[in-house]
């Protein structure tokens, strides 16, 4: 090994704490890069393979009922690969606790079906009409095993069924009852499969189906095929068309993988850039400190390039070591992360590959950023003339800072405050770097902490401010509004109002969106609509209000017209004017006056559900036998599911806080270390003058605290930008995220930022204790 490289190794050894701090940032960035990218690819491949192997359909078309012959007709459309029909209905599981409502989605299947194959996890497939297959998540949550007996109520009739097996199916990777539920509640909602014939019989649809499953060839024009199929099935009352893109389970997986990819490519860059900046700052200081060493190297014949490379190699060493360590750790983590995801999403298979190219990409990325930082940081080497380097450095000319001109402000500062401020202006670049680092940390902390408020907004506010009913009861068949007056005879009702909730497809030209339109009492006590400016809004007597995300999707504004495509056979599509927009975080809906909607789309005075408040503790039990009730959703239960979910969210938020904190810590620690090393002579002089080590630490503390205060202030817009950017990135058709930071988020971000920065400063205090100031005084260098 060349001696100059020996020097490099010892240089690393002598600055090991700073080197390690940089290494930690690089390793963290590369771990995230490798693990998330590999997890993302492995997940995508696994999902693709799962879809392929289990013949996950491309289209699901639900209708009132259609004869089996229509399936053969559908198969004749160009590009269609496979088609099948099935029954899709609701039911409920009878449990010992009669006050517990367990909703079921019941789907029909046969072993010879060409699409939507189950993966058998336990037991066997269906062999008789009185058998069911249970989807894994539900079976696990309710401890259901094969050969168990289940009592299932379908259309008011209770059937005793035997569990033939436990299955997984790509349709139910993310198991939720509807887009409105958003979060899985595996104990209270499940999917069961029964034989086609049995399903047709119990739903009164003998010889008919109510859902068509379609797979098509690659490069098919999906819109065209959907139009053709809709035309074919229109006479049979198309209620909903679900493409893979709009399939809830697939959409959630897609979004999750998209977010994973987004994080995999943004977080590492942020970390590597910070590492690069720290390296630049450190090397800049090293070159200054090593001025004489550089002079000697040049004097004995080392070229500018050789000396520059000596310092660049320091950065490169950090880059390569960090890249290698990070990739290895990332690879190891990728396996665990993929399994965690698969477990969370209940995917019964794994397509796992190690993409060694990511090691190469990670090393290249990390090395490139470090080399650039090295070149920029150590470029001062080129300017050092050997002759000048031999003598002592000419002190920089001192000058007043602009704050001194503000005499009134300046004279009120103590001497040490003035000193601290002057020092900050002495090395503006470093001060700016620390300032940027603290702002970044605070911004990330704000954004992270606002996630909790957002979840509150999305769920708690949704259930306490947006919709305040205790229960939302859905009816199987629409009834006249006055029929609801029977309800208080069955259960105790404090307040109630009828409503219509019907899924429709709305369109504006070629833009389409499927969503539930809600018909509301104009003076609704349960749904509190607000406009985008958060001002109260009433449903108009005519026209439709659209949630903001829906208006955006359809590209319509107030005053524009949208078409409501009717699913009932023989009914005309209706044009309706957009009367305004509704601020809504969860779900995508249209809102109309109850009577107006009834008259326009069905019959005046019809309702298909009821919102109500009730203190009745046995509401589920009492409604148990009411055959026209399809579901009873309790706001309290939904909130309980949310609370359970939040514990998981808090964990990931804690992880993010730690992430941002490490970044802030590393920036401030390294900057302070560079600061200390560059002012060794100055601090030594102060020591000779009688300053204690503690007083010198306080001086640095004061400087850093000014930056901390300013950094937090500057971090506010940074946090707002992060939040705005993330709101845009995370908003989907299903939910709209408004991540605007709350006061609470700011307070928490301030506390965490101060905590991490304080920790960084305490770490430097140990260094101050160890510094030999008197030795520094003897040195000719400063």
């Amino acid at each position: 090994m060349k001696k100059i490289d020996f020097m490099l190794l010892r240089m690393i050894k002598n600055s090991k704490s700073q080197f390690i701090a940089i290494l930690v940032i690089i390793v963290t960035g590369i771990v995230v890069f490798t693990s998330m990218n590999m997890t993302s690819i492995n997940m995508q491949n696994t999902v693709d393979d799962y879809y392929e192997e289990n013949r996950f359909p491309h289209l699901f078309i639900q209708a009132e009922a259609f004869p089996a012959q229509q399936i053969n007709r559908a198969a004749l459309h160009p590009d269609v690969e496979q088609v099948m029909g099935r029954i899709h209905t609701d039911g409920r599981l009878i449990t010992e606790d009669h006050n517990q409502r367990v909703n079921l989605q019941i789907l029909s299947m046969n072993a010879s079906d060409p699409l939507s194959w189950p993966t058998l996890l336990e037991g066997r497939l269906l062999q008789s009409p009185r058998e069911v297959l249970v989807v894994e998540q539900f079976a696990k949550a309710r401890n259901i095993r094969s050969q168990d007996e289940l009592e299932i109520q379908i259309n008011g009739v209770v059937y005793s069924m035997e569990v033939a097996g436990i299955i997984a199916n790509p349709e139910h990777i993310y198991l939720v009852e509807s887009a409105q539920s958003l979060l899985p509640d595996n104990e209270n909602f499940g999917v069961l499969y029964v034989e086609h014939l049995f399903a047709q019989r119990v739903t009164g649809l003998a010889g008919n189906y109510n859902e068509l499953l379609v797979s098509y060839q690659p490069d098919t024009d999906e819109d065209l095929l959907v139009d053709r199929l809709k035309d074919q099935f229109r006479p049979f009352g198309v209620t909903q068309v679900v493409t893979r893109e709009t399939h809830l389970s697939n959409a959630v997986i897609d979004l999750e993988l998209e977010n994973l990819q987004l994080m995999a490519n943004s977080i590492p860059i942020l970390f590597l850039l910070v590492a690069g900046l720290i390296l630049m700052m450190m090397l800049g200081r090293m070159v200054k400190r090593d001025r004489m060493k550089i002079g000697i190297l040049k004097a004995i014949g080392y070229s500018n390039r050789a000396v520059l490379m000596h310092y660049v190699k320091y950065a490169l060493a950090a880059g390569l070591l960090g890249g290698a360590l990070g990739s290895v750790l990332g690879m190891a983590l990728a396996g665990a992360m993929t399994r965690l995801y698969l477990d969370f999403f209940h995917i019964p298979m794994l397509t796992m590959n190690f993409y060694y190219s990511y090691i190469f990409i990670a090393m290249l990325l990390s090395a490139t950023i470090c080399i650039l930082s090295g070149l920029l940081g150590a470029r001062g080497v080129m300017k050092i003339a050997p002759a000048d380097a031999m003598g002592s450095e000419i002190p920089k000319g001192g000058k007043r800072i602009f704050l001194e001109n503000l005499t009134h402000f300046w004279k009120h500062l103590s001497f040490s405050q003035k000193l601290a401020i002057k020092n900050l202006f002495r090395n503006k670049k470093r001060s700016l770097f620390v300032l940027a680092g603290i702002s970044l940390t605070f911004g990330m902390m704000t954004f992270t902490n606002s996630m909790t408020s957002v979840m509150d907004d999305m769920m708690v506010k949704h259930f306490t401010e947006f919709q305040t009913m205790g229960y939302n009861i859905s009816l199987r068949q629409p009834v006249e509004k006055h029929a609801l007056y029977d309800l208080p005879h069955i259960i105790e009702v404090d307040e109630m109002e009828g409503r219509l909730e019907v899924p429709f497809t709305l369109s504006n030209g070629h833009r389409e969106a499927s969503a539930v339109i809600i018909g509301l009492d104009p003076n609704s006590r349960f749904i509190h609509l607000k406009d985008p400016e958060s001002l109260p809004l009433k449903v108009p007597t005519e026209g439709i209000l659209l949630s903001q995300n829906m208006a955006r999707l359809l590209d319509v504004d107030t005053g524009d017209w949208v078409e409501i495509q009717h699913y009932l056979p023989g009914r005309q599509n209706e044009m309706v004017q957009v009367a305004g927009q509704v601020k809504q975080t969860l779900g995508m809906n249209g809102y109309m006056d109850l009577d107006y909607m009834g008259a326009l789309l069905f019959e005046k005075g019809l309702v298909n559900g009821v919102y109500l408040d009730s203190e009745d503790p046995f509401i589920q039990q009492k409604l148990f036998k009411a055959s026209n009730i399809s579901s009873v959703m309790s706001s309290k239960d939904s909130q309980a599911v949310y609370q359970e979910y939040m514990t998981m969210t808090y964990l990931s938020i804690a992880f993010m806080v730690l992430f941002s904190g490490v970044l802030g810590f590393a920036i401030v620690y390294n900057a302070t270390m560079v600061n200390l090393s560059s002012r060794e002579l100055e601090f030594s002089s102060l020591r000779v003058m009688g300053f204690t080590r503690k007083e010198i630490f306080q001086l640095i503390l004061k400087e850093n605290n000014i930056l901390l205060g300013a950094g937090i202030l500057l971090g506010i817009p940074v946090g707002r930008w992060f939040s705005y950017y993330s709101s845009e990135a995370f908003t989907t058709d299903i939910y709209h995220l408004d991540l605007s930071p709350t006061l609470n988020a700011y307070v928490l971000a301030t506390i965490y930022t101060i905590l991490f920065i304080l920790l960084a400063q305490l770490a430097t205090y140990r260094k101050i204790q160890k510094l030999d100031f008197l030795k520094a005084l003897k040195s000719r260098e400063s």
Partner: protein
Amino acid sequence: MAILSTQNLSKSYQMGEVEVKALVDTTFQVEKGEFVVILGPSGSGKSTLLNLIGGMDTPTGGQVFLRDEEITAYNERELTAYRRNKVGFVFQFYNIMANLTARENVELATEISHDPLDIDQVLEAVDLSQRQDHFPSQLSGGEQQRVSIARAVAKNPEILLCDEPTGALDYTTGISILSLLKRVNREMGKTLLVITHNGDIARIADRVIKMRSGQIIEDILEKNPRNVEDIKW
């Protein structure tokens, strides 16, 4: 033919509004194998002269020649090669690398030169064989200066430029360093230029160039230079 010569060599600096003339029209010649002392008080321009001769600085006027090669016409790359192969430096404050051992400091120089001497022999010559694995902080001032000399000599340069080599040392150590330099001159045949403000040291030189205010005021050829052991200060 002189191994080294200067022709009207000048260097001036701008300090604020004042132009400082560090070196004014300096012309002299050094023959191969000579032990030359450049003598002068502080600020007389001797260090500037050494830096220009060593290719560490560029003049504002005049030329420096190594035999018939004009060093002052060299570009940055040629100057680096010149410093690497033709000249060796010894500094007042040794300027050796704190994080390399004595031997490694010497190797640092030999690794980049074309025709280096054997390191063991050089370390033996400067009496550092026993201390070669010590770091500078474990060596005395005299020993550190020996490392510095060994580093300069080991590259096998034609000329050795020494800037106040005994300036930071006590008398006894200073004498031993001068003896060493004299041996390098006599036994290894190296041309030596030593800068000093100490008139007694000048007595061991073959040629003494006296300087004041950036100019040569005397260029004396000593016919009978003293032995190092005979001088005192």
